[in-house]
């Protein structure tokens, strides 16, 4: 214990670290045993880019109504106002709250569909995180670092567990944005490349066009593709004939066989044509506001069904002010709520009726929340000090609310959950110990949670 506290490393760990580099480190997507019995097999992360306002949606603050328009002392956290004190005006929620479900969770008019599912949700209302601007905070959400080059959560998960279906990627991110960290948000960083997130489509493109890159050959008719592939098999066989039992070369030949199988399988996963009308309606597909995000959510379910390990669905765009980023004009939150609420609730309901929710952890949230005081008359600024995230499905207690912000909703005060803690908890639910899931790089063992993070045991089922 003494060595642990003084130097940060136990001597046992040290002994482990002195072994030669990377022997036995997984570098394939083959399924691996978790470290202990997992509560969930996979994750679907619904990323709400820009920072949805918790005080207008799930974190009900009666005091905020009472103090509407009053001054609030605030110490600046941004460039130019760093450390400076100023008076800000408190602003009451723009939408009314009602209680729902057995649990009586408050939900505002922003999310009427999700409100119907609250008995399945596990709210964390005491989230806090690092960074103030979108880029650093979004990177922190995805990689546990605001600036340094670190692997994404999904990369760590597939590194730890591999994936169930070898004909599909293990970590998929649907329609990611190129801004606010961009590809680094799904990057493997220094982990082997196989753990990189595979992006399907990109923000701003219609979901109906999203598919696995190069899974479809647009240059050649099917018959010709097949002829070339057969010829390639013969050429490879002839080349291998002179090199019997050469693993490296055989792996290349095998990669073509696998690619050919993926080509047959992958496009089907992203093709929603086979889904019945009732299912599509559940997700709001075919309705003006929800069609696009509904399609993404339905693809997520199809991937979950096909055994993709980590699925991220992005509600994001390419603008300087990401979608939920209402520095002015808070009423615009309604557009985003309308676009996502029904699809998200539909996804939960669909997972539930298919029994998939029992083995899938669903995570909804943004990179931070918004301030209880106003900005530019009718907007709210970024708030990394306190915000709400919810989890649902495998591994978490349904119908509960954990932690709290202060009475105005500015700062997490009770049972605080740092983003590192959330990361640790997600890994734990998947059967991975965030302190033991390490990778040796540049002479050091790295973790998703760096030297931080504690599992939030109170929310585990």
């Amino acid at each position, binding site marked *: 214990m003494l060595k642990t506290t003084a130097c940060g490393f136990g001597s046992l760990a040290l002994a482990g*670290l002195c072994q030669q580099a990377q022997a036995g480190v997984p570098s394939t997507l083959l399924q691996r045993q978790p470290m202990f019995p997992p509560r969930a097999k996979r994750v679907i992360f619904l990323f709400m880019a820009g920072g949805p306002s918790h005080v207008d949606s799930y974190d009900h603050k009666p005091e905020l109504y009472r103090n509407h328009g009053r001054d609030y002392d605030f110490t600046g956290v941004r460039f130019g106002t760093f450390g400076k004190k100023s008076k800000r005006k408190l602003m009451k929620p723009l939408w009314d709250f009602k209680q729902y479900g057995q649990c009586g969770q408050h939900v505002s008019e922003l999310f009427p569909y999700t409100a119907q599912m609250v008995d399945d949700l596990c709210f964390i209302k005491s989230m806090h995180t690092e960074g103030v601007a979108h880029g650093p905070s979004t990177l922190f959400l995805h990689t546990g670092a605001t600036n340094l080059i670190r692997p994404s959560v999904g990369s760590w998960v597939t590194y730890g567990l591999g994936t169930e279906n070898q004909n599909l990627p293990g970590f998929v991110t649907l329609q990611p944005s190129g801004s606010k960290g961009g590809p680094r948000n799904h990057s493997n960083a220094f982990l082997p490349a196989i753990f990189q997130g595979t992006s399907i489509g990109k923000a701003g493109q219609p979901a109906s066009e999203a598919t696995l890159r190069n899974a479809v050959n647009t240059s050649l008719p099917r018959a010709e593709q097949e002829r070339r592939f057969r010829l390639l098999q013969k050429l490879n066989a002839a080349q291998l004939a002179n090199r019997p039992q050469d693993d*490296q070369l055989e792996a290349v030949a095998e990669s073509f066989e696998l690619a050919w199988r993926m080509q047959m399988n992958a496009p089907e996963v992203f093709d929603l044509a086979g889904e019945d009308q009732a299912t599509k309606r559940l997700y709001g597909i075919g309705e003006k506001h929800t069609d696009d995000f509904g399609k993404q959510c339905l693809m997520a379910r199809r991937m979950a069904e096909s055994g993709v390990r980590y699925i991220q669905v992005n509600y994001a765009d390419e603008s300087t002010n990401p979608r939920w980023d209402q520095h002015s004009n808070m009423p615009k939150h309604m557009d985003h709520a309308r676009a996502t609420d029904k699809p998200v609730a539909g996804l939960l309901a669909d997972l539930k009726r298919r029994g998939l929710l029992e083995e899938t952890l669903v995570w909804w949230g943004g990179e931070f929340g918004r301030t209880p005081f106003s900005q530019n008359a009718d907007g709210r600024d970024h708030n990394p000090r306190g915000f709400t995230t919810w989890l649902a499905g495998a591994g978490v207690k349904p119908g509960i609310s954990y932690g709290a912000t202060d009475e105005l909703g500015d700062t997490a005060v009770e049972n605080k959950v740092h983003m590192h803690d959330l990361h640790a908890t997600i890994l734990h639910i998947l059967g991975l110990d965030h302190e033991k899931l390490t990778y040796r790089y540049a002479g050091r063992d790295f973790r998703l949670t760096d030297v931080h993070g504690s599992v939030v045991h109170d929310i585990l089922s």
Partner: protein
Amino acid sequence: MGGDSGPAIVPGDREASRLIRAVSYADGDLKMPPKYRLTETERVALAQWVESGAADPRSGQVSKKSEEIDLAKGRRFWSFRPVTQPPVPKVDEALGQGESLGAIDRFVLSRLAKEGVRQVDLAKPETLVRRLYFDLIGLPPTPEQLDEFLADTSPEAYARLVDRLLSSPQFGETWGRHWLDVARFAESSGGGRSLMFRNAWRYRDYVIDAFNSDKPFNEFILEQIAGDLLPEGTAAQQNERFVATGFLALGPHNYELQDKELLRMEVVDEQIETVGRAFLAMTIGCARCHDHKFDPIPTRDYYAMAGIFRSTQSLVPGNVSGWVERNLSPSPEVQRKIDQHSKATKKSNAALRDAKTELQKVEVAAGRAGVFVDNPQAEKIGEWMKSTSNKNFYGENYIHDKGEGKGQKKVIFTAELKKAGEYEVRVGYTHGTNRSEKVPVTIAHTGGETTLHINQREVPPISNNFKALGRFRFDEGKATITVSNAGTKDVTIADAVAFIPLMNLNKDSGLESRLAKLRGEVDRLAKRVELLKNSKPAGSPKAMAVQDQKEVSDWHVHIRGGIRNKGPIVPRGFLQVASRRQVDAQAKIRAGSGRRELAEWIASDENPLTRRVMVNRIWHHLMGQGLVRTTDNFGVMGEAPSHSELLDWLAGQFARDNWSVKEMIRHIVLSRTYRLASVGESDGLAADPENRLLWRANRKRLTAEAIRDSILAISGQLSDQQGGYTIRKFSQYDWGYEFNTVRRSVYVPLFRNTLMEVFEAFDVANPNVVTGRRNETTLPTQALYLLNSPFVNKEAKRAGERIERLGHTDAERVRLAYRLTLGREPSAAEAEVAMAFVSDAVSSEENRPWASLAHSLISSIQFRYLD
């Protein structure tokens, strides 16, 4: 035991033991364990244990001294020892099989003899020539080059080929690329808001030129770390040295980080880590928060270097920070153009100003003076942001809606008109490509309200600032014009409005005609000014660079890396363990930041790491694995060299050759060991499966660049144009950038947010970190890329057409296809497969047998490997 802020435990003294303070949570910054506080019982037990002398619980022994990094012991580790001059071993000359043996071979063979392992035979000439072409110039030999070499039976043929390839310009493009991996080169910042580095290409070209001109590697080091501080040279030298310091500047930084002190330290950290790994193969960054866990690098060494880089300016302040750019002296020809242009601009600006003044005078005289209302005087609804970025504004500034809050923002301009009558209404705005195209302007006049739309992307016709909207009648008193952002899509501008009276106040027709003439003159001059602005010559070129801060100083240790947690100040200096004596690690700074002294310390013959690291990297690229396989880690966590004497001999030779990279390459590729086959019978397979002893050549995978360049070479599309700016004009962001070029891969823009697909698929170096050795993965996404990507399909089609055109018979075409793609003749069996395929095929628009054959060969296993 302890850290930078004092010993954790002082046996017998609980007050001086930081451990006890940490667990007590008495100190705001020092809390251990960080997550929870120990129980009272645990804390008391600890305190008593310290009081009683802090015995080791395993042995019961009371420790005498706190553990500190033992530098003397550290210096005994292989990589920190001075480079030795090992004698070249004697070996059985018969092992040369008729060739005389060089030093490299003698070291290798002597070791093999000891282990009782024999080398395999030499590679076949066609294998060797393909290997050499790719290794030195990154391209396959053409069938003609192949024939030429195979036909030359003279003993000097191979050495001549080596010389020819070393002196070809493609050499620098290939070996420069290796260095660009180490320099984590990229042309955008990546991170939160990825910013384009539009001048980074100059650093790329500098590197390529350095390898082509065989710039001594020690000079190359000096220029990259401290080029700006070297004694003054010619203008061209000076330019080159500024550009070279781009090495320090072009890291992946999150310029929008709001905590600017943190950002500054992150940049310093990145520079220390990059310099450490690039030149010394040391992970110095580990010592930011605590003494290095594995290598003898104390935290004070880190902050000794941090003092140097904190005294170096890399950032320019701002909400989103900028980076330092330094002006380069333009070539005389460019300078002449710049001078001419600036003279013409000055002249036109002055003429325009004069004409405007004159016009104003006449307008007053003619009773035509307009009534102007500027935006500060107008009523603003919603948030409008002030700006002066575009200079053609009226008054002090203009305002814009930030492109948001559509339909909720308005600017109401109200004028006090002294006389009723007809006025020309003008609205002022600054134009630009990001502006709204249909901005509603509502004029409340005597006849009612009229709304007109203006396109703010177009240059305003009057003085580049105002646009006339027509004639309207107004009553005496208040008149309003409203600019709104309703229905607009982009940035909407409001600057000013003007009412120009048109009533016949003055009948002096002379004045009227003079007025018309003057207005024409002002418009003409305004157009000319705008024209000149758009035809500005490329201007004084700029380089991404660094410079010394105005104030330079030593810096504090940051306790546990906390940027606001300052410990003692440490003098600027270098790694103590890699300095022969303690005193050599202190920077004897003549002036400035100390970068020059750091560069000299690294580039010195005395430094035990620098030469070893570089010759090992060269060895790695040519032999497929380094003598030290962990090319970027020469520390305890790295691997020890397989042939330490050979490594030192090479490092010594490097110095004897005046740090010439080309000479080092020549020594290695002329060795017999380089020319061995990669397969063959030997007892090595069982004794040494990893080939650490070099009983055969290692098979190497082609780099992503070589794969792409070969495909373009085979299809006949590859351009041989060298150097220059290659990012497409008008591309604002790297995300979604469309790569469309047939230039060599080294010239393809390299962005941190978007990599060319083939690069991403085939393990190009991660441009965020120092990479001396790339990953080599085999993934189905690579196969999908080769099978289905439009690029490969298109080039295979072209290659097929080329094969069809160049060959006369099918048999000839099959041979050509193999020689073009794999650099060898097909075996009888392979020729048979290919002939059968071709004769079976029915050629049609979509079905081209030669394209199919080329495509399948490009996809085939051997294409991506060098035997």
